């Protein structure tokens, strides 16, 4: 099993969600997050003065998938989340030890 954490632009969330559910992803957890990458945010202006907006608002999508879906999920997220400009985000992939469904105590892939 793999755990995917994708940091994406907020306005791309709907597309990403539809793309992932379309290829059989069962569920996801979404959080509003703030952060920065290589650009270190950007500057905005207010009343003629600039200020640094270092921490930009992003969406973090977390989902857990069987190993064999990994490539398809990554392709889908890239396809749906890519604007082609800095700030499109990142996908973090990690191996996951176990998943347990609280209601039935099912474990592993069956619990996803």
């Amino acid at each position, binding site marked *: 099993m793999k755990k995917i954490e994708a940091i994406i632009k907020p306005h791309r969330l709907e597309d990403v969600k539809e793309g992932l559910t379309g290829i059989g992803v069962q569920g996801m957890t979404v959080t509003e997050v*703030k952060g920065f990458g290589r650009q270190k945010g950007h500057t*905005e202006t*207010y*009343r*003629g*003065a*600039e*200020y640094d907006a*270092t921490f930009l608002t992003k969406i973090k999508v977390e989902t857990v998938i069987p190993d064999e879906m990994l490539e398809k999920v990554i392709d889908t997220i890239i396809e749906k989340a890519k604007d082609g400009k800095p700030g499109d985000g990142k996908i973090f992939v990690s191996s996951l030890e176990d998943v347990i469904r609280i209601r039935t105590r099912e474990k592993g892939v069956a619990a996803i």
Partner: protein
Amino acid sequence: MKRVLMLVLLGFMIFGPTIAAFAAEPDPSGTKTGGAADVVGATANAPTADDLKNLAANEPLAAKLADVIGHNKVSINMVWMLICGFLVMFMQAGFALAETGFTRAKNAGHTMAMNFMVYAIGMLGYWVCGFALQMGGVGGVASLGGGAGLDGEFVISLFGKDFGLFGTKGFFLTGVAYDAVIFSIFLFQMVFMDTTATIPTGAMAERWTFKSFLVYGFFISMFIYPLYANWVWGGGWLSQLGKNFSLGHGVVDFAGSSVVHMTGGVAAFAGAIVLGPRLGKFRKDGKPNAIPGHHIPMALTGCFILAFGWFGFNAGSTLAGGDLRIGVVAVNTMLASAAGAFSSMLYMWMLYDKPDISMGANGFLAGLVAITAPCAFVNSVSAVIIGLVAGVALCMSVFFVERVLKVDDPVGAISVHGVNGAWGILALGLFADGTYGDGLNGVQNTVRGLFYGDASQLVAQIAGIITNIIFVFVVMFVFFKILDKIVPLRVAAELETEGLDQAEVAVTAYPDFSVHKTQI
């Protein structure tokens, strides 16, 4: 010590009225106010005093009807003035929303609280003595057929001329002031005073202690506003510059560019200097940081409410619904606001790439402030020019105050009200076209500015500006400095970082949300 002072103040409020009350002949129910005498001069073809005298002998019924017509005329005027006063009262909500929207979420409860309590504090202070000092010597309002009990102007004589300094009738609205007309005048004048009182809360927002704000609220409503207002509107010396020294009609300020707005803006300037900038406003090298307001829709809604109330502010200042100049006044008012919004938007767009809407909103108000004095005396082209200049002056002033003077004014109050208040007074001295104001301040003929042939009117206007700057700035600066020694003006640094809501007014504006930005 502080307790004692508060008790004395409270005692003054409770027992003061009984001391001040004395016998006179006011008309509390208004039944005796307004009669045939008020018909004289009501229109171009109205009966003369002689006509009425003959009428009484020859046609008694018509004479009685003339009496009713006079009463109706006064009623229309009073109803107009009261409704306009109610509109101006609602401007308090506009100020509250505009100032709170342009400041940060962590101080929203505090900024709202100042705008709210200044209404209560200001009104009580004005009732105690502010109204009497301002209007206590005005000697009645012709359009309202009454108010003659306000006949006590304190005057000093210099160079053989009289200089009215302050009024002496109407303390606590008792005695001669217990009169329907005088109460109505109180309402209308009170809401104007409160506009002044609430202007500095914007420039001094996000760092001002509530305690010292309370003392300020009483001080400006009881003394500073009433004195300058007396000089221009209460029959005081600035209004007499025409009669005494042939300077036009004396200082003419139709609805208060100087009396209300400049006084508030100059007081805000003095306060913001003494208080110092918000933490993080200026970098070590002196460059200003932007501290964005937390709720732009709220701020813009506030500006619209202000513009709505401004119809009462300006058109109501005829003190007469029967004075049909109100149509011109109202249109000039809205034209100047449009021009101010447009020119400030263009200025920002051309110089800073974006039509910064917070500056557009300030320009909108700047246009309103600038047209407040000349609104009754100019044509529509002049009104638009006055508004266009106001919007550009606003932008330049905001940057000058912030970048050169290094004074932190979170909402632009100094530039909107102070600078454009002065511009409005000056503009009257330039653009007044001689179609209105015959006999104003005891001077024959209509009001004309420099461009229409009367340079002396401009001189009077400049005298008004200089007097306002010197009097209001010096007194308020010294007042804030002294007050700071007794009741510190500035909140502790850690409170300022944390937000003032809980510590200063015990109400957090947005308890369900995290209101702290990750920086600044």
